[in-house]
């Protein structure tokens, strides 16, 4: 196995290249997933706010008027 890591003495170069590749690609994926999850959470919260606001008070929080009467 150690020969694999040594790569004929050029391990530093090979693994810096592959290491950066791994870091960058994984970082991109993590960022994308986090962004999607944060967005869904925000939309769900807005949804709940719009939902509760319509039952007790008549304030509108972005929910389309038509939707409110549909309750």
């Amino acid at each position: 196995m150690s020969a694999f890591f040594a790569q004929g003495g050029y391990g530093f170069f090979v693994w810096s290249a592959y290491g950066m590749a791994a870091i960058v690609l994984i970082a991109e994926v993590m960022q994308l997933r986090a962004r999607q999850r944060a967005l869904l959470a925000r939309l769900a919260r807005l949804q709940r706010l719009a939902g509760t606001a319509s039952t007790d008070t008549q304030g509108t929080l972005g929910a389309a008027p038509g939707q409110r009467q549909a309750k």
Partner: protein
Amino acid sequence: MALNPFKFAAPAVFYPLANRLIPWFWTLTGILLALGLYWGFFQTPDQLGGNNAQKEYYRIIFVHVPAAWMSMWLYVIMVFWAAVGLVFNTRLSFMMANAVAPTGAIFTFLALWTGAFWGRPSWGTYWDWDPRLTSELVLFFLYLGYLALHAAIDDQRRADRAAALLAIVGLVIVPVIYWSINCPDPTQCASLHQRSNLTRIEGNILFAMLTMTLAFWMYSFATSLMRLRTLILEREAEASWVQELLNPRGGR
């Protein structure tokens, strides 16, 4: 005006489709990546090329070349969607272009980084004004220009169209840039030396590299679709189909 010609152009229809496709692309990426890396590291000789053969460090080729190819392909795809957006005035096409751009920029950076780390052992320096590296650097600036212009303009619609036009202008001028870098002295224009033709490379290495390229393609599809999914949600937040999507029970 007639309804949009292609049915999938409506974000509401495209969103569930993207949801279904993304897992498939991830599995494909995983399989191809594993196969490519295994083959590249364990089924290939320890050096590349005949006379002054490159030692094991040539294995960086499995990341460098696919990344460089992807950086160029994704720019072309970005410009394609930008042009479609400008011609058909469909918002989804602009979102497609925005979804692809960051991944393209990342691959360009990766190509430059891995190129530098490959250059050090084989040429002796991390950076050399070799025409290919310089063109890759210019491509990186074009990506940055696209992303910066899109981010700088507040109005989403104008940002899409302005960045799209910049990408198209960039694509028109890129060949001239590539050519002017490659042969700065027009009298004896050095042919594009070191035409890397694939046939001379040893079979196993070639197979590993192509597998890695396919893996990067699948990766690009997966990340672009994920980013596209988020962009659609961000821009269609008020749309009714998003409300149903959030609570499938359909309100109280």
